[in-house]
C-alpha cells in the first residue's frame, strides 16, 4: 500500500499533480491512498518551500513541479 500526499493549497497545478499521481497508481495497479494536504502549517512541517509537492510514504519526492504519470511511476515502485 502506497500513501500518496499532494501538498498544495488547491490551485490548478495541485489538482493536475493529483490527477497525474492517481493515473500513475491506477496504471500500475497498486494499492494506494491519496490525500490532499492544504493546511500551510502541515505543508511547512515537511520543509516544503514551494508547491505543489508530491509525497510518497512520507518522503517528499518533488517540489514545485507538475509531474506526468510516467515521472511519478518511478516514485511508486
Amino acid at each position, binding site marked *: 500500500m502506497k500513501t500518496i500526499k499532494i501538498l*498544495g493549497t488547491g490551485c490548478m497545478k495541485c489538482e493536475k499533480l493529483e490527477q497525474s499521481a492517481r493515473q500513475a497508481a491506477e496504471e500500475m495497479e497498486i494499492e494506494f491512498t491519496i490525500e490532499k494536504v492544504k493546511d*500551510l502549517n502541515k505543508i511547512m512541517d*515537511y*520543509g516544503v*518551500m*514551494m508547491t505543489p509537492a508530491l509525497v510518497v510514504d512520507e518522503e517528499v*519526492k518533488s517540489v514545485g513541479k507538475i509531474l506526468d504519470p510516467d515521472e511519478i511511476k518511478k516514485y511508486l515502485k
Partner: protein
Amino acid sequence: MSSCNCGNSNIKIIYACSGASDVGSLSDLAARKLRDEKIGAMSCLAAVGAGLSGFIESAKAADKCITIDGCPVACAKKNLEKIGVTPKSFIITEMGYEKGKTSINETTVNEAVSIIKNNICG
C-alpha cells in the same frame, strides 16, 4: 511560504551556517534580516544536513540558493553542494570580520546585510 506559491518562478532560499562563533552568529542574524526584508525565504540548514527530503527537494527546486557562512570552513555551502546544489556563497570573514573578534550588534548586522544585498546577483 505564507500562501499558495504555485508557479512562482523566482524563489530564493537563504541558508545560514548559524555556527557557534561570533561570525556564525552574524551569519544567522544577517540571514534573518534578509528574510525579513523579503530578499528571500529562509530555510533550515540543519534539516538539509539531516537529509530530510522536503528540505532537500526544496533546495533543488529553488531558482537560487544563498548560503551565508561565518568562516571559510563553509559548512552551509558544503551542505548544499553535497546534495548537488551550487549556492551563491557569502563568507562573513571575507567581508572584513575576524573570527573571535567581531562584535554582534545592529551595525555589524546591517553592514553584512548590505554587502550581501549588493552582491546577491550573479
